[in-house]
C-alpha cells in the first residue's frame, strides 16, 4: 500500500523537470509575449493578420506537426538549430531546453491572447493624460500601461504555465522521451501506461499533475484578486 504512494527517483525527476520546463517556458515567452501582444493590439501595419495567424498556429495545428516543425528548424541540422549551436553553444534537440521551447511555443498563443485583450481594455485616455504630464511613450508604457495590464499578464502566464505542464505531443516529437533529460510528467505518465503494471505509477503522477495545476490556478486567482482590489482603489 505504502509503495503505491511513495514516488520513485525517476518519478521525482520527472516532476522536477516538468516544473523547470514550465517555469522556463513561461518566463522566456513573457517578454516576446508582451511585445507581440502590444504589436497586435496597437499596431497598424501590412501583414498584421498574417502575424496573428502565425502566433495562433500552434493552437490549431496537431501538436505533432508543431513538434516536427521545431525539429526541422531547431534540430542539430536545422537552420536555426545550427545557428544557435555555432554562435551561442545552445543545443535544443533532445535536451530539456528543447522541451521548454516546445512548451513555450504551444503556450504562446494563449499568453499573447490574454495580454492582448487586457491591452485593448486599457483606457487610452489615461495614456494621453500621462503624456501631457511629460512622460515619453516608453515611460507611459512602463508607468501606466504595464501596471494596468498586470491582471492580463498574470492570466497569460498562468495559461502558458498550465499549457506547459500538459504539453505532450510537440515535446515528444521534438525532444523524444528521455528519462532525466526530456521525460516530463505527461511523457512519464505515457511511459507508465505502455508497460505492464504501470497503472499505479500513472495514477500517482496524474494526481500530482492535478495538484500542481490546481495550485497554479488558485495562486493566479488570489493574485488577480489582489491586483483587482488595488486598481479599484480601496
Amino acid at each position, binding site marked *: 500500500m505504502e509503495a503505491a504512494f511513495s514516488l520513485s527517483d525517476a518519478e521525482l525527476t520527472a516532476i522536477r523537470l516538468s516544473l523547470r520546463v514550465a517555469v522556463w517556458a513561461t518566463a522566456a515567452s513573457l517578454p516576446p509575449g508582451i511585445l507581440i501582444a502590444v504589436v497586435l493590439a496597437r499596431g497598424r501595419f501590412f501583414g498584421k493578420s498574417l502575424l496573428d495567424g502565425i502566433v495562433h498556429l500552434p493552437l490549431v495545428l496537431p501538436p505533432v506537426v508543431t513538434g516536427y516543425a521545431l525539429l526541422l528548424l531547431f534540430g542539430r541540422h536545422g537552420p536555426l538549430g545550427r545557428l544557435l549551436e555555432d554562435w551561442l553553444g545552445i543545443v535544443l534537440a533532445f535536451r530539456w531546453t528543447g522541451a521548454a521551447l516546445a512548451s513555450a511555443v504551444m503556450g504562446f498563443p494563449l499568453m499573447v491572447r490574454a495580454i492582448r485583450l487586457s491591452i485593448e481594455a486599457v483606457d487610452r485616455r489615461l495614456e494621453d493624460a500621462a*503624456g*501631457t*504630464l*511629460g512622460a*515619453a511613450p516608453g515611460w507611459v508604457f512602463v508607468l501606466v500601461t504595464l501596471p*494596468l495590464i498586470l491582471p492580463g499578464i498574470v492570466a497569460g502566464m498562468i495559461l502558458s504555465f498550465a499549457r506547459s505542464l500538459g504539453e505532450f505531443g510537440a515535446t515528444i516529437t521534438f525532444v523524444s522521451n528521455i528519462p532525466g533529460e526530456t521525460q516530463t510528467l505527461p511523457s512519464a505518465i505515457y511511459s507508465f501506461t505502455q508497460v505492464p503494471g504501470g497503472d499505479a505509477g500513472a495514477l500517482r503522477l496524474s494526481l500530482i499533475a492535478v495538484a500542481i495545476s490546481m495550485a497554479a490556478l488558485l495562486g493566479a486567482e488570489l493574485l488577480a484578486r489582489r491586483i483587482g482590489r488595488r*486598481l*479599484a*482603489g*480601496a
Partner: protein
Amino acid sequence: MLGFDVQHRLGDFTLDARFTSGPGLTALFGRSGAGKSSVVNLIAGLVRPARGRITVDGTDLVDTARGLFVPKHRRRIGYVFQEDRLFPHLTVRQNLLFGRWFSPPAERRGRLDDVVAMLGIGALLARRPGALSGGEKQRVAIGRALLASPRLLLMDEPLASLDAPRKDEILPYIERLRDELGLPIVYVSHSVAEVTRLATTVVLMSEGRVEAVGPVTEVLSRLDLYPKTGRFEAGAVIETRVGGHDPVYDLTRLQCGAGDLWVPRLDMPEGRAVRVRIRARDVTVASVPPQGLSALNVLPARVGEIGAQDGPVVDIRLAVEGGYLLARVTRRSIAELGLITGRSVFAVIKSVALDRQGVTGAPRAPHDDPADLLDG
C-alpha cells in the same frame, strides 16, 4: 502668449479657428460640437492638425509649414480633462507627483505641500482614486496638472461631470488658480454661469469657427450670442466693485462706470471686484429719467444694436459707461419710444432681479501687465 491658427478636418466636421489669448483665464465658449475640445486637444498635442500653427510663449509647438510637431510630452502644457483621468493604480500622492519626475528641475514651480494646501487635499494623499468623490478626484487632477509645472493650463469642462454642490466646491479653487498663480488658463465651457464667473477673455466658438474674441462684458452682450451658444436666457455681464453696504435695508451698493447698482446684501468686502449678470428681461428701457419707481437702479445708456424685429419681442443692446446691457422689450415699445441706434435712454433694473446667482467674484486685475502676473 498663446497663438492658435489651425485648419483641421475630423470626419465631416471642419475646424478653422484662429485667436490669440493672453494672461488670465481664456474661456472657449460655445455649444457642444462647436470645436472647443478639438482646440484644446490640438494645443495639448493629442491631435495633429492638417494645417496651421500653434505658439505658446513665443515657442512654436506646431507649424505645419515647417513640418514641426512637438510631441505632447515635450510641450509642458497642463491638461485637466472632463473626466478626472487619475491613474487608478497609483495613490493620490503618486498621481500628484507623476509629472514632477518629467519636468526639468530648473522650471519646477509650486511645491507639493503648497498645491495640496491650496486644493485642500491633504487628507487624501494616501488613498487611491477609486476611493475619492467626484469633486475630490477633480481637485487631485488639477493638482497633478499644476505640479508638472506647465506653461499653460488647459481645462476641458472640468465641472461638466459634477453635480451642482461639487461644482460650487471646485469653482473657488479655479478662481485661486487664475488669480494667484499667474498661470494662463484656457477653459472650455458651454455654461454662461461658469464663463461669467471665471473668464478674463472669452473666445466665442460656433461650428468650428471663432465668432468673437474679447472681454466677457463685450462678448456676452452680443445679440447674436444665443443662437450660437444654445438655450440660455439672454443677459449681459457688467464689471463692478463693491462700494459699500446698507445695513438698515440689507443692501449692497455696487459701483460700475455708469453709476451705482443696489443689490441684496452680499457677503463681500468693500473694494472687491464683482461681476453682475443682468438678464435682458429684467431690464426696462425709459426714454426720460423715470420717477416714482420702486426699482432702485437707473443707469443712463445709449441704444446700440437692435435685434431682429420679426416677432413681438426684440432684444436690444444698450451701451452704458464701461460696458453693455441687454434689454428685452416689445416691438411696440420700440416704435412708441422711438428707439433707434444712438438714442439716449435710461435702463431700469430691479434690484431683486440681481440675485446671488447672477453676482459673482470677478478676476482680480483682469488685464494686468503679464510680467507682473507671472511673478505672483
